[in-house]
Protein backbone atom coordinates (compact mmCIF):
# COMPACT_ATOMS: atom_id res chain seq x y z
CA UNK A 1 0.00 0.00 0.00
CA UNK A 2 1.37 3.35 -0.96
CA UNK A 3 1.40 6.28 1.32
CA UNK A 4 -0.84 8.44 -0.81
CA UNK A 5 -4.29 9.83 -0.13
CA UNK A 6 -6.78 9.41 -3.00
CA UNK A 7 -8.63 12.58 -4.02
CA UNK A 8 -12.41 12.37 -3.60
CA UNK A 9 -13.22 12.81 -7.27
CA UNK A 10 -11.35 9.59 -7.98
CA UNK A 11 -12.18 7.76 -4.76
CA UNK A 12 -15.99 7.95 -5.06
CA UNK A 13 -16.46 6.72 -8.64
CA UNK A 14 -13.70 4.19 -8.12
CA UNK A 15 -15.44 2.67 -5.12
CA UNK A 16 -18.77 2.66 -6.97
CA UNK A 17 -17.17 0.69 -9.78
CA UNK A 18 -15.74 -1.74 -7.28
CA UNK A 19 -19.14 -2.31 -5.61
CA UNK A 20 -20.80 -2.63 -8.97
CA UNK A 21 -18.44 -5.47 -9.94
CA UNK A 22 -18.44 -7.22 -6.58
CA UNK A 23 -22.07 -7.01 -5.37
CA UNK A 24 -23.56 -9.40 -7.98
CA UNK A 25 -20.88 -11.97 -7.19
CA UNK A 26 -21.52 -11.68 -3.46
CA UNK A 27 -25.26 -11.97 -4.11
CA UNK A 28 -24.65 -15.11 -6.15
CA UNK A 29 -22.68 -16.66 -3.30
CA UNK A 30 -25.30 -15.61 -0.75
CA UNK A 31 -28.16 -16.95 -2.84
CA UNK A 32 -26.51 -20.30 -3.53
CA UNK A 33 -28.69 -23.08 -2.07
CA UNK A 34 -25.78 -24.79 -0.33
CA UNK A 35 -27.90 -27.58 1.20
CA UNK A 36 -29.43 -28.60 -2.12
CA UNK A 37 -26.15 -27.90 -3.96
CA UNK A 38 -24.81 -31.51 -4.06
CA UNK A 39 -28.19 -32.81 -5.21
CA UNK A 40 -28.56 -30.17 -7.92
CA UNK A 41 -25.16 -30.57 -9.48
CA UNK A 42 -25.37 -34.34 -9.36
CA UNK A 43 -28.68 -34.37 -11.23
CA UNK A 44 -28.39 -36.15 -14.60
CA UNK A 45 -28.99 -32.97 -16.57
CA UNK A 46 -26.39 -30.97 -14.63
CA UNK A 47 -23.83 -33.75 -14.84
CA UNK A 48 -24.52 -34.06 -18.56
CA UNK A 49 -23.98 -30.34 -19.02
CA UNK A 50 -20.82 -30.39 -16.90
CA UNK A 51 -19.40 -33.33 -18.82
CA UNK A 52 -20.26 -31.74 -22.15
CA UNK A 53 -18.76 -28.42 -21.11
CA UNK A 54 -15.45 -29.97 -20.10
CA UNK A 55 -15.23 -32.20 -23.16
CA UNK A 56 -16.11 -29.35 -25.50
CA UNK A 57 -13.86 -26.75 -23.87
CA UNK A 58 -10.89 -29.13 -23.79
CA UNK A 59 -11.51 -30.20 -27.39
CA UNK A 60 -11.74 -26.55 -28.46
CA UNK A 61 -8.53 -25.72 -26.59
CA UNK A 62 -6.76 -28.67 -28.19
CA UNK A 63 -7.92 -27.61 -31.66
CA UNK A 64 -6.89 -24.05 -30.95
CA UNK A 65 -3.44 -25.30 -29.90
CA UNK A 66 -2.95 -27.59 -32.90
CA UNK A 67 -4.01 -25.01 -35.46
CA UNK A 68 -3.81 -21.70 -33.62
CA UNK A 69 -0.20 -21.94 -32.42
CA UNK A 70 1.12 -22.48 -35.96
CA UNK A 71 -1.04 -19.57 -37.13
CA UNK A 72 0.34 -17.38 -34.34
CA UNK A 73 3.84 -18.30 -35.53
CA UNK A 74 2.97 -17.41 -39.13
CA UNK A 75 1.67 -14.02 -38.00
CA UNK A 76 4.62 -13.33 -35.69
CA UNK A 77 7.20 -14.16 -38.34
CA UNK A 78 5.30 -12.27 -41.04
CA UNK A 79 5.89 -15.04 -43.56
CA UNK A 80 2.52 -14.47 -45.24
CA UNK A 81 1.65 -11.43 -47.34
CA UNK A 82 -0.62 -8.81 -45.75
CA UNK A 83 0.19 -9.93 -42.22
CA UNK A 84 -1.37 -6.78 -40.75
CA UNK A 85 -4.67 -7.48 -42.47
CA UNK A 86 -4.58 -11.16 -41.51
CA UNK A 87 -3.95 -10.28 -37.87
CA UNK A 88 -6.95 -7.94 -37.92
CA UNK A 89 -9.12 -10.72 -39.37
CA UNK A 90 -8.01 -13.06 -36.59
CA UNK A 91 -8.96 -10.51 -33.96
CA UNK A 92 -12.45 -9.94 -35.38
CA UNK A 93 -14.05 -12.98 -33.65
CA UNK A 94 -12.61 -11.60 -30.43
CA UNK A 95 -14.68 -8.44 -30.75
CA UNK A 96 -17.69 -9.83 -32.61
CA UNK A 97 -20.87 -10.42 -30.57
CA UNK A 98 -20.91 -14.22 -30.16
CA UNK A 99 -24.42 -14.42 -31.64
CA UNK A 100 -23.05 -12.86 -34.81
CA UNK A 101 -20.27 -15.44 -34.80
CA UNK A 102 -22.99 -18.11 -34.60
CA UNK A 103 -24.84 -16.64 -37.58
CA UNK A 104 -21.58 -16.37 -39.51
CA UNK A 105 -20.79 -20.01 -38.73
CA UNK A 106 -24.24 -21.04 -39.99
CA UNK A 107 -23.55 -19.20 -43.23
CA UNK A 108 -20.11 -20.76 -43.52
CA UNK A 109 -20.48 -24.26 -42.16
CA UNK A 110 -24.27 -24.69 -41.92
CA UNK A 111 -26.07 -27.25 -44.04
CA UNK A 112 -26.79 -24.54 -46.64
CA UNK A 113 -23.56 -22.66 -45.93
CA UNK A 114 -20.67 -21.77 -48.18
CA UNK A 115 -18.48 -24.74 -47.22
CA UNK A 116 -21.04 -26.63 -45.12
CA UNK A 117 -23.35 -27.02 -48.12
CA UNK A 118 -20.59 -28.66 -50.10
CA UNK A 119 -19.68 -30.95 -47.20
CA UNK A 120 -23.33 -31.95 -46.76
CA UNK A 121 -24.03 -32.53 -50.45
CA UNK A 122 -20.81 -34.47 -51.04
CA UNK A 123 -20.21 -36.40 -47.83
CA UNK A 124 -23.45 -35.97 -45.92
CA UNK A 125 -21.52 -34.24 -43.11
CA UNK A 126 -23.45 -31.71 -41.08
CA UNK A 127 -22.24 -29.67 -38.09
CA UNK A 128 -25.09 -27.57 -36.67
CA UNK A 129 -27.10 -28.97 -33.77
CA UNK A 130 -24.44 -31.58 -32.95
CA UNK A 131 -21.69 -31.80 -30.32
CA UNK A 132 -19.14 -31.28 -33.09
CA UNK A 133 -21.03 -28.08 -33.90
CA UNK A 134 -20.56 -26.93 -30.30
CA UNK A 135 -16.83 -27.62 -30.54
CA UNK A 136 -16.67 -25.64 -33.80
CA UNK A 137 -18.58 -22.67 -32.38
CA UNK A 138 -16.48 -22.69 -29.22
CA UNK A 139 -13.18 -22.98 -31.07
CA UNK A 140 -14.18 -20.11 -33.36
CA UNK A 141 -14.77 -17.82 -30.41
CA UNK A 142 -11.92 -18.98 -28.15
CA UNK A 143 -9.01 -19.57 -30.56
CA UNK A 144 -8.21 -15.87 -31.11
CA UNK A 145 -7.31 -15.56 -27.41
CA UNK A 146 -4.62 -18.19 -27.81
CA UNK A 147 -3.43 -16.83 -31.16
CA UNK A 148 -3.03 -13.27 -29.92
CA UNK A 149 -1.23 -14.32 -26.75
CA UNK A 150 1.07 -16.70 -28.57
CA UNK A 151 1.83 -14.23 -31.34
CA UNK A 152 3.05 -11.80 -28.71
CA UNK A 153 5.17 -14.57 -27.22
CA UNK A 154 6.74 -15.50 -30.55
CA UNK A 155 7.34 -11.87 -31.39
CA UNK A 156 9.15 -11.09 -28.16
CA UNK A 157 11.43 -14.09 -28.62
CA UNK A 158 14.68 -12.90 -30.13
CA UNK A 159 15.54 -14.52 -33.45
CA UNK A 160 19.10 -15.26 -32.32
CA UNK A 161 18.07 -18.28 -30.23
CA UNK A 162 16.53 -19.96 -33.25
CA UNK A 163 19.52 -18.92 -35.35
CA UNK A 164 21.88 -20.40 -32.78
CA UNK A 165 19.94 -23.67 -32.75
CA UNK A 166 20.03 -23.82 -36.55
CA UNK A 167 23.80 -23.35 -36.67
CA UNK A 168 24.09 -26.17 -34.14
CA UNK A 169 22.47 -28.47 -36.68
CA UNK A 170 18.91 -28.60 -35.33
CA UNK A 171 16.16 -29.22 -37.88
CA UNK A 172 13.39 -26.62 -38.02
CA UNK A 173 11.12 -29.08 -36.22
CA UNK A 174 13.67 -29.55 -33.46
CA UNK A 175 14.26 -25.80 -33.22
CA UNK A 176 10.53 -25.23 -32.79
CA UNK A 177 9.86 -27.91 -30.20
CA UNK A 178 13.13 -27.72 -28.24
CA UNK A 179 13.90 -24.01 -28.34
CA UNK A 180 10.99 -21.88 -29.51
CA UNK A 181 8.14 -23.53 -27.60
CA UNK A 182 9.94 -23.92 -24.26
CA UNK A 183 11.02 -20.30 -24.45
CA UNK A 184 7.48 -19.06 -25.07
CA UNK A 185 6.00 -21.45 -22.49
CA UNK A 186 4.68 -18.65 -20.24
CA UNK A 187 2.75 -17.12 -23.16
CA UNK A 188 1.56 -20.58 -24.19
CA UNK A 189 0.22 -21.39 -20.72
CA UNK A 190 -1.47 -18.01 -20.37
CA UNK A 191 -2.96 -18.33 -23.85
CA UNK A 192 -4.20 -21.88 -23.31
CA UNK A 193 -5.84 -21.00 -19.99
CA UNK A 194 -7.49 -17.87 -21.40
CA UNK A 195 -8.66 -19.86 -24.40
CA UNK A 196 -10.03 -22.65 -22.22
CA UNK A 197 -11.81 -20.24 -19.85
CA UNK A 198 -13.40 -18.46 -22.80
CA UNK A 199 -14.44 -21.83 -24.28
CA UNK A 200 -16.00 -22.92 -21.02
CA UNK A 201 -18.17 -19.82 -20.88
CA UNK A 202 -19.19 -19.79 -24.54
CA UNK A 203 -22.92 -19.20 -24.98
CA UNK A 204 -24.03 -17.03 -27.89
CA UNK A 205 -22.30 -18.71 -30.80
CA UNK A 206 -23.10 -22.15 -29.40
CA UNK A 207 -26.82 -21.60 -28.99
CA UNK A 208 -27.03 -19.98 -32.42
CA UNK A 209 -24.99 -22.51 -34.35
CA UNK A 210 -25.62 -25.69 -32.36
CA UNK A 211 -28.88 -25.11 -30.54
CA UNK A 212 -29.78 -26.11 -26.98
CA UNK A 213 -30.26 -29.90 -26.79
CA UNK A 214 -29.59 -31.55 -23.42
CA UNK A 215 -26.83 -34.15 -23.67
CA UNK A 216 -25.86 -33.07 -27.19
CA UNK A 217 -25.27 -29.34 -27.28
CA UNK A 218 -26.38 -28.07 -23.89
CA UNK A 219 -23.18 -26.92 -22.16
CA UNK A 220 -23.09 -25.35 -18.68
CA UNK A 221 -23.91 -21.78 -19.73
CA UNK A 222 -26.83 -23.06 -21.80
CA UNK A 223 -28.00 -25.17 -18.88
CA UNK A 224 -27.88 -22.12 -16.62
CA UNK A 225 -29.94 -20.14 -19.13
CA UNK A 226 -32.46 -22.98 -19.46
CA UNK A 227 -32.75 -23.56 -15.71
CA UNK A 228 -33.39 -19.87 -15.12
CA UNK A 229 -36.81 -20.29 -16.75
CA UNK A 230 -37.80 -23.30 -14.63
CA UNK A 231 -35.86 -23.52 -11.37
CA UNK A 232 -33.88 -20.49 -10.25
CA UNK A 233 -31.92 -22.34 -7.56
CA UNK A 234 -30.57 -24.79 -10.17
CA UNK A 235 -29.42 -21.83 -12.28
CA UNK A 236 -27.69 -20.30 -9.28
CA UNK A 237 -25.99 -23.56 -8.29
CA UNK A 238 -24.69 -24.15 -11.84
CA UNK A 239 -23.52 -20.53 -12.01
CA UNK A 240 -21.65 -21.08 -8.79
CA UNK A 241 -19.71 -23.93 -10.40
CA UNK A 242 -18.65 -21.66 -13.27
CA UNK A 243 -17.72 -18.88 -10.84
CA UNK A 244 -15.49 -21.26 -8.89
CA UNK A 245 -13.76 -22.31 -12.10
CA UNK A 246 -13.18 -18.66 -13.10
CA UNK A 247 -11.72 -17.80 -9.70
CA UNK A 248 -9.60 -20.94 -9.91
CA UNK A 249 -8.16 -19.76 -13.25
CA UNK A 250 -7.43 -16.36 -11.77
CA UNK A 251 -5.64 -17.85 -8.79
CA UNK A 252 -3.69 -20.26 -10.99
CA UNK A 253 -2.43 -17.44 -13.20
CA UNK A 254 -2.12 -14.84 -10.47
CA UNK A 255 1.26 -13.20 -10.39
CA UNK A 256 2.63 -15.73 -12.81
CA UNK A 257 1.43 -14.86 -16.25
CA UNK A 258 -1.20 -12.17 -15.94
CA UNK A 259 0.99 -9.85 -13.96
CA UNK A 260 0.47 -6.15 -14.39
CA UNK A 261 3.77 -4.50 -15.08
CA UNK A 262 4.83 -2.95 -11.81
CA UNK A 263 6.46 0.49 -12.03
Amino acid at each position, binding site marked *: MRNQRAPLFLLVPGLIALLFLVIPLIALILQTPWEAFPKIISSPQALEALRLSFVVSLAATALAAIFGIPMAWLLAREVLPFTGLLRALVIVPLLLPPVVSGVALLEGLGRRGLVGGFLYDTFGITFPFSTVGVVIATTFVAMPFLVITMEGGFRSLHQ*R*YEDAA*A*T*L*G*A*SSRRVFFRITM*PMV*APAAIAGLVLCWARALGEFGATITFAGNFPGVTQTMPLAVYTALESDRSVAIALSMVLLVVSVGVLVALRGKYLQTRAS
Partner: protein
Amino acid sequence: MKIDANFSVTRGDFRLNIDTIFSAGAVTAVLGPNGSGKSTLLRVLAGLQRIDSGEIVFGDQVVNKAPSIHVVPQERSVGVVFQDYALFPHLCVLDNIAFGPRSLGLSRKASQARAQSQLASLGITDLGPRKPNQISGGQAQRVALARALATEPNVLLLDEPLSALDVQTREGVRAELEKQINGFGGCVVFVTHDPLDAMLLADRVIVLEDGSIAQQGTPSELAARPQTDYVATLMGVNLIRGVADQGVLQVDGGGVLSVPQVELRGAALAVLRPEAITLHLLRPEGSARNVWQGRVRALTPMHDRIRVSIDALPPVVATITHSALADLKLSVGTPIWVSAKTLTIEAFEVGAKKELE
Protein backbone atom coordinates in the same frame (compact mmCIF):
# COMPACT_ATOMS: atom_id res chain seq x y z
CA MET B 1 39.32 -25.70 -45.03
CA LYS B 2 39.50 -22.29 -46.66
CA ILE B 3 36.55 -20.12 -47.56
CA ASP B 4 36.39 -18.43 -50.91
CA ALA B 5 33.84 -15.64 -50.71
CA ASN B 6 32.84 -13.39 -53.56
CA PHE B 7 29.31 -12.08 -53.14
CA SER B 8 27.03 -9.16 -52.51
CA VAL B 9 23.97 -8.68 -50.33
CA THR B 10 21.55 -5.79 -50.62
CA ARG B 11 19.27 -4.83 -47.76
CA GLY B 12 17.34 -1.67 -48.50
CA ASP B 13 19.92 1.07 -49.06
CA PHE B 14 22.75 -0.99 -47.69
CA ARG B 15 24.95 -3.09 -49.92
CA LEU B 16 27.62 -5.49 -48.71
CA ASN B 17 30.28 -6.37 -51.25
CA ILE B 18 32.85 -8.98 -50.33
CA ASP B 19 35.66 -10.54 -52.34
CA THR B 20 38.21 -12.32 -50.22
CA ILE B 21 39.65 -15.63 -49.12
CA PHE B 22 39.61 -16.81 -45.52
CA SER B 23 42.60 -19.13 -45.34
CA ALA B 24 42.49 -22.53 -43.70
CA GLY B 25 43.89 -22.58 -40.20
CA ALA B 26 44.05 -18.80 -40.05
CA VAL B 27 42.30 -16.40 -37.71
CA THR B 28 40.73 -13.51 -39.59
CA ALA B 29 39.36 -10.46 -37.85
CA VAL B 30 36.67 -8.42 -39.55
CA LEU B 31 37.06 -4.92 -38.21
CA GLY B 32 34.76 -2.04 -38.91
CA PRO B 33 32.53 0.65 -37.44
CA ASN B 34 28.87 0.00 -36.61
CA GLY B 35 26.81 -0.44 -39.75
CA SER B 36 29.78 -1.41 -41.88
CA GLY B 37 28.22 -4.80 -42.57
CA LYS B 38 30.44 -7.02 -40.45
CA SER B 39 27.62 -8.85 -38.70
CA THR B 40 25.88 -9.35 -42.03
CA LEU B 41 29.08 -10.90 -43.39
CA LEU B 42 29.10 -13.34 -40.49
CA ARG B 43 25.41 -14.19 -40.95
CA VAL B 44 26.05 -14.88 -44.63
CA LEU B 45 28.94 -17.22 -43.85
CA ALA B 46 26.77 -19.00 -41.25
CA GLY B 47 24.01 -19.47 -43.84
CA LEU B 48 21.54 -17.34 -41.88
CA GLN B 49 21.38 -14.73 -44.64
CA ARG B 50 21.00 -15.36 -48.35
CA ILE B 51 23.22 -13.64 -50.90
CA ASP B 52 21.98 -11.69 -53.92
CA SER B 53 24.86 -12.38 -56.26
CA GLY B 54 28.15 -14.20 -56.40
CA GLU B 55 29.18 -17.40 -54.65
CA ILE B 56 30.77 -18.78 -51.51
CA VAL B 57 32.85 -21.95 -51.46
CA PHE B 58 33.81 -23.85 -48.28
CA GLY B 59 36.79 -26.01 -49.20
CA ASP B 60 35.41 -27.60 -52.36
CA GLN B 61 31.71 -27.37 -51.41
CA VAL B 62 29.74 -24.56 -53.01
CA VAL B 63 27.54 -23.36 -50.12
CA ASN B 64 26.12 -20.34 -51.93
CA LYS B 65 25.64 -19.58 -55.57
CA ALA B 66 23.08 -16.90 -56.25
CA PRO B 67 20.27 -17.33 -56.87
CA SER B 68 19.90 -21.11 -56.83
CA ILE B 69 22.16 -22.65 -54.18
CA HIS B 70 21.81 -21.85 -50.50
CA VAL B 71 23.06 -24.49 -48.08
CA VAL B 72 21.17 -24.07 -44.79
CA PRO B 73 23.12 -23.48 -41.55
CA GLN B 74 22.34 -27.03 -40.38
CA GLU B 75 24.41 -28.47 -43.25
CA ARG B 76 27.39 -26.11 -43.13
CA SER B 77 29.65 -27.35 -40.36
CA VAL B 78 29.95 -23.88 -38.85
CA GLY B 79 30.12 -23.09 -35.17
CA VAL B 80 28.84 -19.65 -34.26
CA VAL B 81 29.43 -17.66 -31.09
CA PHE B 82 26.74 -15.02 -31.15
CA GLN B 83 27.00 -11.53 -29.78
CA ASP B 84 25.50 -11.73 -26.25
CA TYR B 85 26.06 -15.49 -26.67
CA ALA B 86 22.40 -16.51 -27.17
CA LEU B 87 22.65 -19.35 -24.66
CA PHE B 88 19.30 -21.12 -24.38
CA PRO B 89 17.94 -19.82 -21.08
CA HIS B 90 15.71 -22.83 -20.39
CA LEU B 91 18.55 -25.35 -20.66
CA CYS B 92 21.40 -25.85 -18.20
CA VAL B 93 24.95 -25.22 -19.38
CA LEU B 94 25.58 -28.90 -20.07
CA ASP B 95 22.40 -29.26 -22.14
CA ASN B 96 23.25 -26.07 -24.03
CA ILE B 97 26.51 -27.65 -25.12
CA ALA B 98 24.96 -31.08 -25.71
CA PHE B 99 22.25 -29.54 -27.93
CA GLY B 100 24.50 -29.48 -31.03
CA PRO B 101 25.79 -33.05 -30.84
CA ARG B 102 22.26 -34.27 -30.08
CA SER B 103 20.95 -32.36 -33.12
CA LEU B 104 23.54 -34.11 -35.26
CA GLY B 105 22.11 -37.46 -34.24
CA LEU B 106 24.31 -38.54 -31.33
CA SER B 107 22.58 -40.39 -28.50
CA ARG B 108 21.63 -38.45 -25.41
CA LYS B 109 24.42 -40.14 -23.49
CA ALA B 110 27.11 -39.52 -26.12
CA SER B 111 26.01 -35.88 -26.47
CA GLN B 112 26.25 -35.31 -22.74
CA ALA B 113 29.67 -36.99 -22.67
CA ARG B 114 30.87 -34.73 -25.46
CA ALA B 115 29.51 -31.68 -23.65
CA GLN B 116 31.20 -32.81 -20.45
CA SER B 117 34.58 -33.11 -22.18
CA GLN B 118 34.13 -29.66 -23.78
CA LEU B 119 33.48 -28.20 -20.33
CA ALA B 120 36.51 -30.01 -18.98
CA SER B 121 38.80 -28.69 -21.72
CA LEU B 122 37.70 -25.15 -20.83
CA GLY B 123 38.11 -25.86 -17.14
CA ILE B 124 34.51 -25.08 -16.26
CA THR B 125 33.15 -28.52 -15.41
CA ASP B 126 31.38 -27.24 -12.31
CA LEU B 127 29.15 -24.93 -14.41
CA GLY B 128 27.38 -27.89 -16.05
CA PRO B 129 24.19 -27.97 -13.99
CA ARG B 130 23.76 -24.17 -13.84
CA LYS B 131 21.31 -22.17 -15.91
CA PRO B 132 22.71 -19.41 -18.16
CA ASN B 133 21.30 -16.69 -15.90
CA GLN B 134 23.37 -18.09 -13.02
CA ILE B 135 26.78 -17.61 -14.62
CA SER B 136 28.94 -14.54 -15.25
CA GLY B 137 29.56 -12.87 -18.61
CA GLY B 138 33.06 -14.33 -18.90
CA GLN B 139 31.72 -17.80 -18.11
CA ALA B 140 28.89 -17.34 -20.62
CA GLN B 141 31.49 -16.50 -23.26
CA ARG B 142 33.32 -19.77 -22.53
CA VAL B 143 30.09 -21.76 -22.58
CA ALA B 144 29.08 -20.20 -25.91
CA LEU B 145 32.45 -21.16 -27.33
CA ALA B 146 32.18 -24.68 -25.93
CA ARG B 147 28.72 -25.01 -27.46
CA ALA B 148 29.96 -23.83 -30.86
CA LEU B 149 32.91 -26.23 -30.78
CA ALA B 150 30.90 -29.24 -29.55
CA THR B 151 29.65 -29.98 -33.07
CA GLU B 152 33.29 -30.14 -34.26
CA PRO B 153 32.78 -27.59 -37.03
CA ASN B 154 35.28 -26.78 -39.78
CA VAL B 155 34.60 -23.07 -39.49
CA LEU B 156 34.28 -21.03 -36.32
CA LEU B 157 32.48 -17.69 -36.52
CA LEU B 158 32.45 -15.25 -33.62
CA ASP B 159 30.36 -12.07 -33.51
CA GLU B 160 31.91 -9.49 -31.18
CA PRO B 161 33.02 -12.24 -28.79
CA LEU B 162 34.29 -9.84 -26.12
CA SER B 163 32.07 -6.79 -26.47
CA ALA B 164 29.53 -7.94 -23.88
CA LEU B 165 32.23 -8.09 -21.20
CA ASP B 166 33.44 -5.36 -18.89
CA VAL B 167 37.04 -4.19 -19.11
CA GLN B 168 38.24 -6.20 -16.09
CA THR B 169 37.05 -9.61 -17.33
CA ARG B 170 37.90 -8.81 -20.92
CA GLU B 171 41.65 -9.33 -20.75
CA GLY B 172 41.43 -12.70 -19.04
CA VAL B 173 38.75 -13.91 -21.43
CA ARG B 174 40.71 -12.61 -24.41
CA ALA B 175 43.75 -14.62 -23.40
CA GLU B 176 41.58 -17.71 -22.95
CA LEU B 177 39.87 -17.10 -26.29
CA GLU B 178 43.24 -16.73 -27.99
CA LYS B 179 44.31 -20.11 -26.64
CA GLN B 180 41.07 -21.72 -27.78
CA ILE B 181 40.97 -20.34 -31.31
CA ASN B 182 44.64 -21.05 -31.88
CA GLY B 183 44.04 -24.63 -30.82
CA PHE B 184 40.97 -24.92 -33.04
CA GLY B 185 42.84 -25.59 -36.26
CA GLY B 186 39.99 -24.76 -38.65
CA CYS B 187 39.12 -21.47 -40.27
CA VAL B 188 38.24 -18.76 -37.73
CA VAL B 189 36.47 -15.52 -38.60
CA PHE B 190 35.58 -13.06 -35.90
CA VAL B 191 33.92 -9.72 -36.06
CA THR B 192 34.94 -6.86 -33.81
CA HIS B 193 34.89 -3.11 -33.60
CA ASP B 194 37.86 -3.15 -31.22
CA PRO B 195 41.21 -2.83 -33.02
CA LEU B 196 42.97 -4.27 -29.98
CA ASP B 197 41.08 -7.57 -30.31
CA ALA B 198 41.93 -7.66 -34.00
CA MET B 199 45.61 -6.91 -33.43
CA LEU B 200 46.02 -9.42 -30.63
CA LEU B 201 43.94 -12.33 -31.91
CA ALA B 202 44.10 -12.25 -35.69
CA ASP B 203 46.60 -13.42 -38.28
CA ARG B 204 44.85 -11.29 -40.82
CA VAL B 205 42.52 -8.32 -40.62
CA ILE B 206 39.78 -7.28 -43.04
CA VAL B 207 38.60 -3.72 -42.57
CA LEU B 208 35.02 -3.12 -43.65
CA GLU B 209 33.69 0.34 -44.29
CA ASP B 210 30.23 1.04 -45.71
CA GLY B 211 29.76 -2.52 -46.87
CA SER B 212 33.01 -3.00 -48.72
CA ILE B 213 36.53 -4.06 -47.90
CA ALA B 214 38.59 -0.94 -47.29
CA GLN B 215 41.79 -2.81 -46.60
CA GLN B 216 43.02 -6.29 -45.75
CA GLY B 217 46.35 -7.57 -44.54
CA THR B 218 48.27 -8.62 -41.47
CA PRO B 219 47.90 -6.46 -38.37
CA SER B 220 51.41 -5.05 -38.82
CA GLU B 221 50.75 -4.15 -42.46
CA LEU B 222 47.64 -2.26 -41.44
CA ALA B 223 49.52 -0.41 -38.75
CA ALA B 224 52.39 0.42 -41.11
CA ARG B 225 50.36 1.34 -44.17
CA PRO B 226 46.81 2.33 -43.41
CA GLN B 227 44.82 3.12 -46.54
CA THR B 228 41.92 5.01 -45.05
CA ASP B 229 41.41 7.56 -42.31
CA TYR B 230 39.37 5.03 -40.37
CA VAL B 231 42.22 2.51 -40.33
CA ALA B 232 44.75 5.22 -39.47
CA THR B 233 42.62 6.42 -36.57
CA LEU B 234 42.21 2.85 -35.37
CA MET B 235 45.94 2.36 -35.48
CA GLY B 236 46.46 5.66 -33.73
CA VAL B 237 48.61 7.17 -36.47
CA ASN B 238 48.39 10.30 -38.61
CA LEU B 239 47.56 9.54 -42.21
CA ILE B 240 48.44 12.38 -44.56
CA ARG B 241 47.38 12.41 -48.19
CA GLY B 242 49.16 14.31 -50.89
CA VAL B 243 51.20 14.21 -54.06
CA ALA B 244 54.83 13.10 -53.77
CA ASP B 245 57.76 14.11 -55.92
CA GLN B 246 61.47 13.71 -55.13
CA GLY B 247 61.04 13.34 -51.41
CA VAL B 248 58.53 16.17 -51.03
CA LEU B 249 54.87 15.57 -50.30
CA GLN B 250 52.51 18.39 -51.29
CA VAL B 251 49.75 17.78 -48.78
CA ASP B 252 46.12 17.83 -50.01
CA GLY B 253 44.54 20.80 -48.24
CA GLY B 254 47.84 22.61 -47.77
CA GLY B 255 51.27 22.13 -46.30
CA VAL B 256 54.46 20.37 -47.33
CA LEU B 257 56.23 17.37 -45.80
CA SER B 258 59.69 16.11 -46.44
CA VAL B 259 59.60 12.32 -46.74
CA PRO B 260 62.50 9.85 -47.03
CA GLN B 261 60.99 7.97 -50.02
CA VAL B 262 62.62 10.06 -52.75
CA GLU B 263 61.69 7.62 -55.52
CA LEU B 264 57.95 8.05 -54.82
CA ARG B 265 55.94 10.00 -57.42
CA GLY B 266 52.25 10.85 -57.64
CA ALA B 267 49.35 10.36 -55.22
CA ALA B 268 50.73 9.09 -51.93
CA LEU B 269 49.97 8.51 -48.28
CA ALA B 270 52.33 9.33 -45.43
CA VAL B 271 52.16 7.80 -41.98
CA LEU B 272 53.34 9.97 -39.13
CA ARG B 273 53.36 8.42 -35.68
CA PRO B 274 52.04 10.67 -32.90
CA GLU B 275 54.99 9.79 -30.67
CA ALA B 276 57.46 10.83 -33.40
CA ILE B 277 56.20 14.41 -33.34
CA THR B 278 57.90 17.00 -31.13
CA LEU B 279 56.09 20.12 -29.92
CA HIS B 280 57.80 23.45 -29.26
CA LEU B 281 56.67 26.83 -27.98
CA LEU B 282 59.29 28.63 -30.12
CA ARG B 283 60.41 27.85 -33.64
CA PRO B 284 62.97 25.05 -33.28
CA GLU B 285 66.37 25.29 -34.92
CA GLY B 286 67.55 21.72 -35.42
CA SER B 287 67.94 18.77 -37.73
CA ALA B 288 64.22 18.13 -38.22
CA ARG B 289 63.34 19.00 -41.83
CA ASN B 290 59.63 19.24 -41.12
CA VAL B 291 58.70 22.23 -38.99
CA TRP B 292 55.33 23.92 -39.13
CA GLN B 293 53.12 26.06 -36.94
CA GLY B 294 49.59 25.56 -35.61
CA ARG B 295 47.33 25.82 -32.62
CA VAL B 296 46.21 23.27 -30.03
CA ARG B 297 42.66 22.17 -30.89
CA ALA B 298 42.10 19.54 -28.19
CA LEU B 299 43.87 17.74 -25.37
CA THR B 300 42.82 14.16 -24.60
CA PRO B 301 44.33 12.43 -21.57
CA MET B 302 45.17 8.74 -22.10
CA HIS B 303 46.32 6.64 -19.18
CA ASP B 304 50.07 7.28 -19.60
CA ARG B 305 50.15 10.15 -22.09
CA ILE B 306 48.26 13.09 -23.55
CA ARG B 307 46.97 13.19 -27.11
CA VAL B 308 47.31 16.67 -28.53
CA SER B 309 45.25 17.48 -31.63
CA ILE B 310 46.77 20.36 -33.58
CA ASP B 311 45.13 22.58 -36.16
CA ALA B 312 47.82 23.18 -38.74
CA LEU B 313 48.73 22.44 -42.35
CA PRO B 314 48.68 19.49 -42.25
CA PRO B 315 46.65 18.87 -39.06
CA VAL B 316 48.21 16.18 -36.86
CA VAL B 317 47.84 14.38 -33.56
CA ALA B 318 50.86 14.20 -31.28
CA THR B 319 51.33 12.33 -28.02
CA ILE B 320 53.35 13.80 -25.16
CA THR B 321 53.98 12.86 -21.54
CA HIS B 322 52.24 14.49 -18.60
CA SER B 323 55.50 16.19 -17.59
CA ALA B 324 55.96 17.63 -21.10
CA LEU B 325 52.44 18.99 -20.90
CA ALA B 326 53.26 20.62 -17.57
CA ASP B 327 56.47 22.17 -18.97
CA LEU B 328 54.80 23.51 -22.11
CA LYS B 329 51.65 24.68 -20.23
CA LEU B 330 49.49 23.77 -23.21
CA SER B 331 45.80 24.55 -23.37
CA VAL B 332 43.26 24.73 -26.18
CA GLY B 333 44.24 27.57 -28.54
CA THR B 334 47.94 27.71 -27.56
CA PRO B 335 50.09 28.53 -30.64
CA ILE B 336 52.59 25.73 -31.10
CA TRP B 337 55.40 24.61 -33.40
CA VAL B 338 55.38 21.05 -34.67
CA SER B 339 58.46 19.19 -35.85
CA ALA B 340 59.11 15.73 -37.21
CA LYS B 341 62.29 14.20 -38.54
CA THR B 342 62.00 13.12 -42.15
CA LEU B 343 63.22 9.63 -41.29
CA THR B 344 60.29 9.03 -38.92
CA ILE B 345 57.82 9.41 -41.80
CA GLU B 346 56.87 6.57 -44.08
CA ALA B 347 55.27 7.46 -47.38
CA PHE B 348 53.84 5.03 -49.89
CA GLU B 349 51.74 4.89 -53.00
CA VAL B 350 47.96 4.97 -52.62
CA GLY B 351 46.60 1.42 -52.85
CA ALA B 352 50.07 -0.13 -52.57
CA LYS B 353 50.23 -3.62 -51.12
CA LYS B 354 46.53 -3.73 -50.52
CA GLU B 355 46.69 -7.50 -50.71
CA LEU B 356 50.00 -9.02 -49.76
CA GLU B 357 48.91 -12.63 -49.43
